Every structure is written in structure tokens, then in C-alpha cells.
């Protein structure tokens, strides 16, 4: 097992943990932050799969716009999930 495989395994673990947090947590603001982290790691994985075009699109959308849209949604509804 070379170092590259170890790095991809660590990154995939981080991605799965962030996705589980985003789905399970009651605080929707934290869920938005966790999905932001997931988008970061997904971008690195696309980059490691030699797809820089997809990675750059994921970066441009996920860094600012998607989190801002989620925060607008939280602002006009409620922050805490019942």
C-alpha cells in the first residue's frame, strides 16, 4: 500500500464523517458547515482523480455560494431542527 492510497483513504473517511454529521445534527447551521467541509474534500478527491475542471467548478460553487444560499434558507425559516 503506497502513500497515495493512504491519503485517499484518509480523505474518504473525512468525507463520510462530514456527510454523516450534515445529515444527523439538529443544529442546521452546523449542518451547513459540515456540508461545506464535505464539498472541500470532494473537490480534493476530484483533483486526485485528474479531473481539475470538475474540481474547479466544485470549488467555485461550494466555497461561497452554496453555503450562502443555505444560510439564507436558515434565516428565513428556523435554525434548530425539532
Amino acid at each position, binding site marked *: 500500500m503506497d502513500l497515495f492510497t493512504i491519503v485517499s483513504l484518509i480523505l474518504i473517511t473525512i468525507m463520510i464523517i462530514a456527510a454523516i454529521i450534515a445529515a444527523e445534527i439538529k443544529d442546521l447551521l452546523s449542518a451547513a458547515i459540515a456540508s461545506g467541509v464535505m464539498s472541500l474534500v470532494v473537490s480534493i478527491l476530484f483533483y486526485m482523480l485528474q479531473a*481539475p*475542471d470538475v*474540481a*474547479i*467548478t466544485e*470549488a*467555485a*460553487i461550494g*466555497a*461561497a*455560494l452554496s453555503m*450562502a*444560499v443555505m444560510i*439564507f434558507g436558515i434565516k428565513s425559516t428556523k435554525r434548530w431542527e425539532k
Partner: protein
Amino acid sequence: MKRVLALTLAILLFIVFAMAFAKIPFGEKMSNYPDYYNPIENQTSNMSLPQHYLTYGKNDTGATNMVTAVVVDYRGFDTLGEVTVLFLASTGVGSLMYVEDKVKRKVRRSNAVVETGSKLLFGFIILFGAYIFIHGHLTPGGGFPGGAVIASSFLLLYLAYPKFHAEHKKLNVSESLAGLTFVIVGLLGLIIAGYFLYNFLPFGLPTYLFSAGVIPVIYVAIGVKVGSELTGIVDAMMGVRE
């Protein structure tokens, strides 16, 4: 109990999907398939699609970045559809968020650091977005990420200044002009060579900025259009503030 059941079901589904996807030959030579007729080379071949793009793409389109060649040249008509879908989404958000009686909300000012920093960085971010979509045929990137970067710069101003508003008329004009440019370039190709979106400009030298014919023109149009649409979505979601 329910949760355990759901988890087992999810794991089972995952295993089934993984077994199914493991058998799809991504990017392999499809020797089991029959030969197909290639109209450009005027002969039959059984080269797989990615191999065909990598072999002939540079001569067909003149673009260095093969993803751009596929998105704008080989599948240019699909891109027109994608841009139209984005336009419809922007219109939908605008009509959902429309309020008749414009109640102005009070908004707390941000601090001096954020105001000065956003004023300083706004121009750089727009410049960087323009760099991404102008160099779409040479480096990774293209119209969609460039437009998203430009919309992010406007989002930054919206966040920093409570009184900032992008003017709707200018956004609409730039969006319509960009869409019009795309369609007119396609129609010119139809007039000149008989194909919609035919690449009628000279290709130039590869890896130079002025190369690849109409691809940079179309990407600039897509970038401006996506940027103004996403800015319109941000503006609609922000609402009316004081």
C-alpha cells in the same frame, strides 16, 4: 431498531451498486461492439469515444483543454440547454421570492475591517473570474466557474454593505446580451457552413490565447450570463433591506 434496519439496507444497496458499477468498462476499448461509421474521417473505426476525442480533438477544435472542446464544440448545443435551465432556475427563484409590499428590514452594519477588505478585494475577485472564463480553452475552468466567482464577488458586497443593491436593469441587459451572442454565433455557423455552432473562425496556434476559433467567444458569453443570473439569485434571496 429502525435505524439499524435502514443502515443494513443502505449497506446492501451500496454493495449491489458497487458490484454493478465495477463491471462497466469506463474508457476501455469496446471491442465487443460493432464498428461505427465516422463521418469526419470518412471510414469505419471501433475506437472508443474518449480515445477518439483525445486523438482528433486538437485538430477538430484547436482547443488545448479537451474538456472545453467537448463542452463547447462537440456538445455545444447541450451547453445552450444548460444555460437555459440556469436561466429558468433564476427566474423561478425571482418569482418565488417576490413580495408585493416591500417591507424594509433593519440590518446591522458590519465592522470596518470587513467593509474595507471587501472594497479592496472586489475588483481582484472579478478580475480572477474573468481570467477563468477567458482562459477556458487553455487551463481548467470555463464559463460556469468563472460566473460563480463573479457572483461570489457581488455576494461579498451584499454581505459587507447593508445598502448595496445590484441594479436589476443592468443585470437583465448583460444577461440578455450574453445569451444573444451565444445564439448569434451559432446561427452564423449555420449560415456559413450548414451546422449550428460551426467553428468558423481561424484556429490559430494551440496554447495561445487567441486560438480555438469561436470557443473563447462562447465561453465569455456563458461566463457573463452565468454571473449575472447567479447575482440575480443572490439579490432575490437577500430581500429588501434598509
